[in-house]
């Protein structure tokens, strides 16, 4: 179904990705001093953008958030590349995105409520 249902689906997919990212961040922080651990991140927005720019209908169930190791932060002497400050920054961004999506969702529902008219 396109239209309002699609928006709810999109927001739901985003919230799912954000919860998974929060999990990844907690995992990274838990492994702050684990020798040899490389930090993990979630790839979702890029995949979604690619799907949305491609023609035809988008089946959101096909887009699964992907776990990957960015390997971009410098590796410490124990082979670990988790940086606490980076994780805090990621968490703040994640919280902001999550809040925005949840508020959009509640706005959408109150819009539907309005459309259903006085009870």
């Amino acid at each position, binding site marked *: 179904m396109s239209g309002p249902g699609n928006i709810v689906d999109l927001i739901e997919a985003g919230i799912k990705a954000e919860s998974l990212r929060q999990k990844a961040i907690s995992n990274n922080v838990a492994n702050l001093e684990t020798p040899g651990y490389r930090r993990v991140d979630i790839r979702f927005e890029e995949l979604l953008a690619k799907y949305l720019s491609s023609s035809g209908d988008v089946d959101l169930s096909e887009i699964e958030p992907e776990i990957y190791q960015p390997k*971009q932060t410098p590796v410490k002497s124990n082979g670990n590349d988790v*940086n606490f*400050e*980076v994780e*805090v*920054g990621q968490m*703040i*961004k994640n919280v*902001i995105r999550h*809040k*925005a999506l949840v*508020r*959009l969702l*509640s*706005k959408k529902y109150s819009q539907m409520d309005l459309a259903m008219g006085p009870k």
Partner: protein
Amino acid sequence: MEVNNSFGPIDITISGLRAQGKQMEVISSNVANARTVDAGNGEPYRRLEAVFKSDGEMGGVELDKIVPDMSDFLEVLDPGNPLADERGYVAMPNVNLPLEMMNLNIASRVYQANAAVLKRYQQMIETTLELLR
């Protein structure tokens, strides 16, 4: 590090926090080795200095390199020391503790400043999100 519009300030302040973390590492190495007579290369420990550079235009800060301080070693008269030269002097690291303490203060203040900017920006975003209620 890539910076995208609305999360830019977050990435920049985080780069500031990381840079000051590195600076702290360098300072702690200098303080820990303030009396290290042998750094493994036949010389006393040489004080290190972190050099930062800005990461492109508005891309935050990053550690450029850590360079040794080439100023003269401190000569201490200690004839009983097995490492003393024929005049009785021992070469000591060129670490200047009061200077390190000053740098430590600056580093922790700059860290706090970055954290304050981050917090304030977070509040700004919250204000925008309030409009969505």
